[in-house]
Structures are given as C-alpha cells and as structure tokens.
C-alpha cells in the first residue's frame, strides 16, 4: 500500500488529462482532416523523445460559470524533445479543449516553455491551432498574448523560432508567428487573419471566404507571411525536420555537419545560363549545380519568386543562398523581393551562416504601383541587410548586374568578401539599350536613319561596357572565372574566411528602414 496506490492514482490522473477535450472533440478534429495536438508532437519528435510539462495545469477563471468547467491542460501541450537528436522546445495548442482558446494559464504554459528555450538556447517550435482569446478570461488573455510577443522578440536572433499554423490563428494571435523566423502552413488547414470574414462582411460589406482571405495559399503566394507551404500535415512535419538540419540551435552554435558530397552530374553548370541576357532560365539549377548533393532547401518558394532564397550545404556546412530568378519577372528587384531577401540575409547574419549571392538582374521593376508601394523604402532594406552583415559574403555575377541592382546584390561596395564574375557578366550603370539612348541621344536624333544609328550605338556600348572587365579593372570584381570553377572557388573562399572578424561602430542598434 502507499506508494503503489499513489502511482496508480498518478496513472489515472494522467489518463484523464491525456484525453484532452474528449472523444467527441477528437472525432471532430479528425473529421476536419487534422491531427490532434499530441499526435502532431509525436510525428515531429524523435520516437519517445518528448517529455511533457505542466500536464496538470488548470485554469483559475471564475466568471461566466468558468469555475465549473474543467479544461485539460488548459488547451495547450508544452515540453521538450529532440529532432534528429537536436533538442527542441515545443508547444502545441489543443483545439479539442475549448477550441484551443488562450487563457491566462494557457499563456503561462507557453511562456514557461519559451523561457526555457531561451535559457537553454534551443529552438522553439510553436504549433498554433486556436480559436483565439478566451473571451471569458477578458484582459487576462490579452496579457497572455502580450507576454508571448515580448518573449518572441527577446528570443529573436538568439534561438531559432518556428511557427506551425495547423488550424485557425486569428486576431492578435497571428502576431506571435509573425515575430518568429519561419512560418509553416498547410493547404486547407491553416487560416491566418487579423479580422475574419464575418467582421469584414458586417463592417465593410465585403464578401470573402476564409480560404481566400487568409488560407495557406494566400499567405504563401500573396502576403509572404508564410515561408513553407505543404499539402498535408505529414509533409509539413518533414519540412520542419529538414529545416532543423540546416539551422544552428542558437546564435553561438553551428548547424549539423554533414558528409560532403559533390553536386549531381545532371546539373551542368556551364549549360544552364543562356548567353543572350534577355533569355530566362531557372537560377535554382545553378544553385543545385553548386551545392552538396544538389540539395537546395528553398524558403518562400511561392512568394516574390523573382528572387530565390534558401539553404544548401558546401563541404557539409550550411550556407544561405540569395539569387535573382530570371525565370520570374526577369529577376527584377521590387518591393516584395527586396523585403524577402533582406530578412533572409539578416537571418543568416544573426545565426552566423555565410551567404552566397548569385546575381543576374536587369534592375528594379518599373511601375506606378511599385513607386507608390514604397520601393525606395523596401529596396533600402536589402542594402541595409547586406551592409550590416558580417558573415562571410560571396558574390557571383552570372550575367546582368545593372545599376542600383548591382549595388544592392552584395556588391564589393557593401563589403562582399569575394566577388566573382563569369565571362558572361555585364556590369554597367544600366542595360545597353537604355544607356545608348541617353548617351548618344543627339547622334541618334540627328541621324538620317535614327533606328540604324540607335542599333549601331547600342552595339558600340555593348562591346565597350557589357562585360566584367571594366569592373575587374577597378578591383570591384576580384576574379573573372569560368562557370566550372564556381564551386571550387566558393569552397575555397569559405575555407579561407573561417575566422572572419569585422569591427562595426558601437551602437545600441541601427534603424533599418522597416
């Protein structure tokens, strides 16, 4: 007697709480095509690695008959586990318990695991599936959100923070994911918005479905709020696990080291980029021809696709890639692509990941909508991010590098450590057509056949300036290289910049244009 009975009592108590919101609520969750919070954690972590905290936490709300309600675990599961052996802190909101609504104790559990993650310097993964604030708990639930946002901000740049949206995430609740580094969404399951369709209909008289307002596709293609899109929860968890292999567990550490592997032979680096600078190609093929095992892990694939960002490995170590994508919008910089690349560069810098930049862009996207959307302010973000980044910065100019775009894309002038250019590179103040039209305006206008003269002058300009040698003559480009040499020289530059140190002016923090 005694110990044995007490242990049995513990088992009974555990069993009771582990049911979450009960069979009916679980059935409903499953009918929506969703896993339960506990199933999600189990699928994400290494087998038997998850340890749950605060299983027996109860809410203390009294108003509106809440004192008579039992909410198991207060609608959220927290704990620690491992992914490929790397430690992680996790919270998962349990929609089967009061719709995963956030009350005071629910929030305290989340902040407890957040504090733990920051203290132990391990990544935090938050699985969001919640109807929002628990209205019965009033301002206490708002306080809970505030405490979470504050910790998201403190942890930013210290530990990786990953948000997984597996259900509704509405109102103030969306700001926690927005403050984190990577947001994962799943088609038809994730819903994120500040103001829901119901309010929009009654207040504004505008009709829209939840999916069209803030579904997974919208956030992956239009808003850029999400970083990874998948068709199912299982696929989503695979993506998260893969991401974990690429990122260091904190800003003092290194990512997992992998066995170095040559790129796959099907990616022939000299056969990807067409010689004609007006013809498109998929720049991701160039990245795949450079990285270990041709394994490139793209981030925000569907949003602002005119720039490509993501991780790959060189000699087994994680490298961040930024590349203009001539296949989409000719690879121009615009509001969204500047924003996308700038944030990624800051991520890499915060977590000490070297950056390789591949350049092939005609400039900035012309248009009233771009100017009025503040392309000046957004474009400046990229200049800022590259300038302040002190990690090793390698730049390869593949083809076009014109005007402001040339400067912005990790140029020597923003302190790139190594600048390579292929013989196909054209580094100039603008494209030959535009430049010739301005410089030789008088000659063209006064010529007998202006069109013939224009063509002649464009050709003249092209021959003189559309090459890498003018920039190389000034030392803005360190070496003009053959495409086949790219991987070898990039590996070499990473190797020789292992102990890079840069001294910046002392300051509290800069004021980037965001």
């Amino acid at each position, binding site marked *: 007697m005694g110990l044995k009975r007490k242990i049995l009592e513990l088992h009974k108590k555990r069993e009771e709480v582990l049911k979450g919101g009960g069979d009916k609520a679980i059935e409903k969750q499953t009918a929506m095509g969703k896993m339960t919070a506990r199933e999600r954690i189990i699928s994400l972590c290494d087998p038997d690695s998850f340890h749950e905290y605060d299983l027996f936490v109860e809410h203390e709300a009294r108003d509106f008959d809440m004192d008579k309600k039992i909410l198991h675990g207060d609608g959220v599961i927290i704990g620690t586990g491992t992914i490929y052996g790397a430690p992680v802190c996790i919270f998962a909101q349990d929609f089967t318990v009061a719709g995963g609504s956030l009350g005071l104790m629910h929030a305290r559990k989340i902040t407890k695991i957040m504090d733990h993650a920051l203290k132990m310097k391990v990544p935090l993964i938050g699985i969001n599936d919640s109807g929002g604030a628990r209205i019965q708990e009033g301002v206490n639930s708002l306080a809970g959100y505030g405490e979470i946002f504050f910790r998201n901000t403190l942890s930013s740049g210290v530990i990786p923070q990953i948000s997984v949206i597996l259900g509704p995430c509405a109102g103030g609740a969306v700001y926690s994911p927005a403050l984190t580094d990577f947001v994962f969404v799943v088609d038809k399951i994730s819903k994120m918005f500040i103001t829901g369709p119901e309010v929009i209909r009654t*207040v*504004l*008289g*505008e009709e829209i479905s939840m999916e069209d307002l803030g579904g997974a596709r919208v956030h992956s*293609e*239009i808003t850029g709020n999400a970083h990874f899109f998948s068709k199912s929860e299982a696929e989503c968890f695979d993506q998260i696990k893969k991401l974990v292999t690429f990122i260091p567990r904190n800003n003092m550490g290194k990512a997992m080291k992998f066995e170095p592997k040559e790129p796959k032979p*099907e*990616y*022939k680096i000299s*056969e*990807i980029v067409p010689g004609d600078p*007006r*013809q*498109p*190609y*998929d720049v991701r*093929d160039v990245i*795949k021809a450079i990285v270990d095992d041709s394994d490139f892990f793209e981030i925000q694939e569907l949003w602002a*696709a*005119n720039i490509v960002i993501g991780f790959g490995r060189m000699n087994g170590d994680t490298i961040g890639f930024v590349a203009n994508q*001539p*296949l*989409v*919008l*000719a*690879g*121009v910089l615009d509001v*969204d692509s500047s924003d996308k690349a700038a944030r990624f560069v800051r991520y890499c810098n915060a977590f000490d990941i070297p950056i390789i930049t591949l350049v092939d862009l*005609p*400039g900035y*996207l*012309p*248009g*009233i*909508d771009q100017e*009025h959307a503040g392309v000046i302010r957004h474009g400046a973000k990229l200049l800022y991010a590259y300038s302040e980044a002190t990690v090793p910065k390698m730049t390869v100019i593949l083809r076009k590098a*014109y*005007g402001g775009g040339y400067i912005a894309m990790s140029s020597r002038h923003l302190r790139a450590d190594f600048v390579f250019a292929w013989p196909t590179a054209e580094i100039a103040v*603008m*494209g*030959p*057509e*535009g*430049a010739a*039209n301005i410089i030789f305006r008088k000659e063209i206008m006064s010529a007998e056949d202006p069109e013939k003269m224009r063509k002649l002058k464009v050709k003249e300009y092209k021959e003189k300036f559309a090459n890498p040698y003018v920039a190389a003559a000034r030392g803005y480009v360190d070496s003009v290289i053959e495409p086949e040499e790219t991987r070898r020289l990039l590996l070499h530059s990473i190797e020789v910049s292992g102990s890079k140190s840069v001294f910046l002016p002392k300051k509290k923090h800069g004021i980037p244009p965001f």
Partner: protein
Amino acid sequence: MKKVNCEDKKVRCKSLYIDGTKYRTTLHKKYLTRKQYAKPEKNKVYSFIPGTILKINVSLGQCVKKGDSLLVLEAMKMQNIILSPLEGVIKSINVKEGERAPKGTLMVEIGYTHELT
C-alpha cells in the same frame, strides 16, 4: 534538370521591358492582378471607409468653401466629419441620411466654380 524553353507554351513566357530592353520571362499572379493606377479626382468625395450616412449638411447647388462640413459618415464607432476638399458648388449628392455606404461610394460631387461661368 529541365532546361527552360521559352518556345514551350507551358512555360508561358511573356515580355517585360526594363530600361528599353525586352526580357523574356514569366509573370507571377500578384503582378498580373495588380491594380491599375487611376488619377484621383479631387472634386469627387468617396467614402474612404464603409459606414452609415448620419447627416448631410449641404444641399444641391450650394456654394461651399474648402474645409466646410459636407456630411457625417459613421464608421468604426466614430462619427467622421467629411470636409469639402475644395471651393465650389455642390453638383450632386448621391447618398441619403441613414443610408449605408460601402467603401468607395461616390457620396458628393463638387463642381468647380470656374465651370459656372
């Protein structure tokens, strides 16, 4: 590795002009569905927010000065006083008191004074 071929209809290549050069490329959804710019007409007063017309302070043909109160639009729990953007004559009033006005409703149009002569 699949090479990009602009002649392939599936690639949906379009032309994009930058600094006088024509580039072959694809265009994404957000770019294709972007709003065309329309020059704002200062003499046309639109509801900037959906709401209810609480009170109309002007009548047809009335002369107004810049800054005169035209009407009160209640929206977002606030009684917004809509002021005349310029000096002129009330050319048309397209809303009634008590009526709900969706966002972008042309509420009042003001005729320029020089149009009268």
